[in-house]
């Protein structure tokens, strides 16, 4: 048997997995207290702020691209719809996995199915996760069926594909905005720089932008890694739509700051204001400023850099809502414990790993008409 080659990234991956396994042991055999810095004052940490809020936000390219290609019939985006769908599917699976760590009693995760409370945003969030996972399984199944040339189930799925995609877009939109709605109930706790009745809309629009940026980022990154070219016009048109989405977001966010009067807090220098300005720079000033320059907008590599900035910016935004903005009212300063960070890193590592595996073994960046005449043996492909 051939042993896998030892490379830098494989060592990192193994280390992340080993630490993650140790953290998982602490979490499930010693409890949340031993594995996190959460407390009665600060009950939600990065497992909600990053794993859930950022994780789901970064999957938004999935419903955006599926909707754009299969409903709006934007043909030139077709090549990138599948990678986006795979990201979304993986993102949701990992989010469900990450929830096992955060929930106090994860074995009760299915309870919202039979114990209803339609007044609860969390109830809606739970249902959205379950429904959209099922829908994405249907959307993703053709990729697997194509790979193994199962023509009959492919034909059946083709018949229901349009209603499935439409339902997926609707559920995903509701889910993205519901994650913002979660915080509508804490007017006295979330800092006014982030608390606004507009939270659901802001979460939705920013998810569109972050999802598009993520799609540009991961497609370019995997194209570089797997040595296949991406159509330039495709990337450039996504860049233009990203710019428009960012501008819409900027108008909503800035108008809302003045409308609610919260802009005043931005001028009181301090922890919250500093984090607010970092967020504004990374989500609005930098990406919009850069994308407005035609030379940058029309170059795949600089677009790649802008997409990384945008993704980082909206990650800061979500963490500001979940952590920065909640600290002052809680009376404690929350810094995640090493084991919290390590579980989150394990989720990211799993995401990259499974995305790479999917791209390698399934027709993700290729298409039906491009696939080989006969399904190659799995062993050979490996």
């Amino acid at each position, binding site marked *: 048997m051939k042993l896998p080659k030892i490379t830098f990234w494989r060592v990192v991956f193994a280390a992340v997995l080993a630490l993650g396994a140790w953290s998982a042991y602490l979490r499930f055999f010693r409890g949340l*207290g*031993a594995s996190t810095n959460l407390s*009665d004052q600060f*009950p939600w940490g990065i497992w909600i702020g990053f794993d859930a809020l950022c994780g789901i936000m970064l999957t938004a390219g999935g419903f955006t691209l599926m*909707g754009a290609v299969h409903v709006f*019939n934007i043909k030139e985006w077709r090549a990138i719809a599948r990678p986006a769908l795979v990201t979304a599917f993986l993102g949701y699976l990992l989010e469900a996995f990450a929830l096992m760590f955060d929930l106090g009693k*994860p074995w009760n995760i299915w309870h*919202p199915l039979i114990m*209803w409370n339609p007044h609860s945003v969390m109830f809606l969030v739970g249902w959205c996760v379950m429904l959209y996972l099922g829908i994405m399984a249907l959307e993703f199944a053709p990729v697997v069926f194509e790979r193994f040339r199962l023509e009959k189930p492919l034909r059946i799925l083709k018949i229901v594909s349009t209603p499935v995609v439409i339902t997926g877009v609707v559920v995903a939109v509701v889910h993205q905005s519901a994650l913002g*709605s979660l915080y509508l109930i804490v007017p006295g706790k979330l800092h006014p720089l982030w608390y606004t009745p507009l939270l659901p809309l802001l979460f939705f629009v920013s998810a569109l932008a972050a999802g598009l940026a993520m799609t540009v980022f991961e497609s370019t990154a995997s194209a570089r890694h797997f040595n296949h070219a991406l159509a330039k016009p495709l990337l450039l048109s996504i860049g233009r739509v990203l710019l428009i989405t960012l501008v819409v977001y900027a108008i909503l966010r800035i108008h809302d700051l003045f409308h609610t009067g919260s802009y005043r807090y931005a001028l009181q220098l301090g922890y919250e204001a500093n984090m607010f300005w970092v967020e504004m720079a990374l989500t609005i000033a930098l990406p919009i400023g850069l994308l407005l320059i035609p030379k940058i907008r029309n170059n795949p590599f600089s677009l790649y850099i802008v997409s990384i900035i945008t993704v980082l910016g909206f990650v800061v935004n979500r963490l500001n809502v979940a952590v920065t903005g909640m600290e002052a009212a809680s009376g404690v300063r929350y810094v995640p414990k090493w084991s919290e960070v390590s579980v989150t890193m394990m989720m990211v590592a799993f995401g990259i790993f499974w995305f790479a595996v999917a791209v390698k073994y399934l027709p993700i960046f290729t298409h039906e008409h491009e696939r080989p005449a006969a399904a190659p043996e799995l062993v050979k492909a490996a």
Partner: protein
Amino acid sequence: MPSAILYDATLCIDCKQCEQACATQNKNPYDDSIGKEQRTSDHKFTYVHDTFGNEKFMRKLCMNCLDPTCVSVCPVGALVKHKEGPVSYNADACMGCRYCMVACPFGVPKYEWTKTIPRVRKCIMCPDRVLAGKQTACAEACPTGATLFGDRDALIAEARKRIAAEPGKYVPTIYGLNEVGGTSVLILSSVPVEKFGYPPAAKYGEKPLPPLTADVLEHVPQVVTVGWAVLGGIWWITNRREIVKESEKP
């Protein structure tokens, strides 16, 4: 009839009988060192705040709101408001999302962080006693009448009478009368309650919090149907264009 607890801080002597009775009622441990703990926690659902000095005391316990935020946010309905007053908790239904802790305006629910099968812990206003027509354990144990249990309206009338009788003695408002829509715990005090860590009355106002999310959730069916119709319409148009284009091919 909705019942309530009236706590008159000016009658409190810091004997901690309520703490002891609460611990017994809820099967929590209690000894001298727990008696000294100046906070509510997973094993202490009420305490008498005595660090303010000058013989001024203040009880802390779950307010058992009339329209409780925790009940509205719980995804599985593990928290329930009884019409008699108590806000009870069903640990078997709970999945441990801790949204109740995030949402509670009074910071009441506590968590068993050290347990591998953790529960949310808080004062639940003795539902087994109250639903059987008895008073809460803390009210029963109170030797001075600082903690009274009874019909909410009757207790409000009593509180108003006390304020009117000795206007200089009390802060002239009943805390809990209208805060976040009113609570089943009413507080009279000579010192503003916010000095003891309660949110000031103005912070959340007199409206209950649950509509903040419930009103948004009401729009979800609309968003779903309109969204479906619009996307379906767009698909129909784009699909039709394709069919026409196909048929026009030579």
